[in-house]
């Protein structure tokens, strides 16, 4: 149990629903350990069980079996009263913001503070500070209906932070927002993580959201946790097909490959199609030049995507190698000897 000392420890979680005689296993035997200070991403398609799983963390969803330990407290064994107290340490934001329409922005942030025991003046001070953090100080008197989606989510974030939680759960919080607002909200979450040290759990179906803020990622499919690891390992070296799909969608390589196959460009170059993945310094090696110098193999770059993830470069490249057959073979072997992942891509379309 030495390594199992995270702030959130979900162990062997099963969630089963019974609905009109049908049994649905929403979450199957999932264990997750989130460390303090993590920005932990859970990605999966709708219906994968990620929302159900994350609701188990504050017991909005009671697991059919398994244990939930948050901050060394076994939540499943708490009384209703103690559970409510524990929940104050876990802020939550939602896809549809879930603000009180009858209260102003100020009133919404005040909402969780009413039972805090603080005086009215202390509450005001705190609310002003929270609104300042999310950049909505000038909107305190507005009602939610007068705000844009991004502003509503900021209010929801301020509300979630009101009781100084150590954990913040984001349930598809950016899925209803446009790309620019999504980036702003994710940046805000990242800032909260850095400045306040809040542990954040993010659920999403967008790899781009994960890429932007998470340091660890879990991939869910059909209620099961199929892959988990650091952002770099998931992104640079995905193992499961679904994870690869998410990464490919994010780098656009999937659609590029389809285009390359359709265009027949590699045939025209009479070469072999190679995919190269690299993390970190390998980027700087002049691979293309090396290939020509050593093997007189021409490398035509067909696609390249380079990203900075957590200050580390992660790249993906597609090129067609053209040259004598045995030289190309040697070139591929040379690439394999470098610190890069090399994969030869079949020119046939999937399923052929």
């Amino acid at each position: 149990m030495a390594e199992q000392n995270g702030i959130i420890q979900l162990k062997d979680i099963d969630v089963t629903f019974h609905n009109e005689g049908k049994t649905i296993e929403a979450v199957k035997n999932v264990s997750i350990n989130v460390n303090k200070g993590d920005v932990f991403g859970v990605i999966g398609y709708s219906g994968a069980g990620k929302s159900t799983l994350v609701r188990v963390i504050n017991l909005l969803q009671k697991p059919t079996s398994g244990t939930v330990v948050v901050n060394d407290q076994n939540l499943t064994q708490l009384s209703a009263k103690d559970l409510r107290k524990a929940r104050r340490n876990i802020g939550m934001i939602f896809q549809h913001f879930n603000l009180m329409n009858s209260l102003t922005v100020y009133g919404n942030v005040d909402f969780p503070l009413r039972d805090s025991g603080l005086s009215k003046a202390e509450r005001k001070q705190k609310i002003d500070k929270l609104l300042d953090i999310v950049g909505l100080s000038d909107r305190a008197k507005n009602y939610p209906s007068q705000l844009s989606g991004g502003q509503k989510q900021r209010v929801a974030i301020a509300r979630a932070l009101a009781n100084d939680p150590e954990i913040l759960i984001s349930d598809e919080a950016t899925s209803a927002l446009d790309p620019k607002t999504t980036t702003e909200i994710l940046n805000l979450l990242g800032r909260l993580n850095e400045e306040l040290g809040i542990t954040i759990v993010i659920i999403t179906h967008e790899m781009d959201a994960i890429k932007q803020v998470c340091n660890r990622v879990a991939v869910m499919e059909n209620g099961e946790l199929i892959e988990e690891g650091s952002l770099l390992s998931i992104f640079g070296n995905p193992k499961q097909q679904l994870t690869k799909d998410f990464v490919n969608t994010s780098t656009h390589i999937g659609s590029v490959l389809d285009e390359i196959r359709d265009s027949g460009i590699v045939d025209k170059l009479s070469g072999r199609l190679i995919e190269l993945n690299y993390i970190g310094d390998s980027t700087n090696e002049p691979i293309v030049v090396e290939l020509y110098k050593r093997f007189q193999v021409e490398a035509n770059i067909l696609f390249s995507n380079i990203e900075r993830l957590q200050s580390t470069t992660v790249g993906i490249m597609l090129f067609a190698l053209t040259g004598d057959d045995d030289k190309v073979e040697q070139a591929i072997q040379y690439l394999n000897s470098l610190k890069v992942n090399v994969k030869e891509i079949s020119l046939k379309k999937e399923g052929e």
Partner: protein
Amino acid sequence: MADLVNKFLPNVVANWEGDNGFVVAIWQTLYMTFVSALFAGIIGIILGILLVVTADDGITPHKTFYTCLDKLVNLFRSIPFIILLAVIGPFTKLIVGQTIGPTGALVPLVIGTAPFFARQVQLALVEVDHGVIEAAEAIGLSPIKIIFRVYLREGLPELIRSGTLTIISLIGLTAMAGAVGGGGLGNMAISVGYQRFENDVTIVSMLFILVLVFVIQGLGDFAVRKLEH
């Protein structure tokens, strides 16, 4: 003006004052409407809240309780009011000591209205966004606080709308209760205006009831406009 009134509404003038006159009838109608609205309102809100929170997707689900209450509300809603008036006579006597007059009408009016209002309250409160309830649960609010701070607060405009509707239908019921011994404008219209062929009395009774309905509708709409953001 006085001549015109005397000429066209002779029976209204003759029946204006006295124990069975218009002034008394108006007060009786207001008394029946608002006293029974108060009690039916309290009972209806409590029953409506219980229906919402004990339902399958409520905050404290309780299948047996919900099913029983649900059936009970339906049962009382199904009894035609005029029959209810007669059937619960002994119970009315037990509670208020009389079965006739405006006070005698209160018990059947409350029993006839409360289930209807309970259903209206239930409909108003299930409309409250489930996500907001979930957010309140995540914040650590107890069920009782969720009822007062979220359900009743967020559902208030809709509750006022249903309250207005309920009071208006209650005015209709007071007319019916009036006709069988409850007094008020209903009694005036039927036992004086209709049965003695004094048509002006019937029409003026109706006009008073219409004014009452319009005023209540107007107040309700005003309150909803003030509350909705």
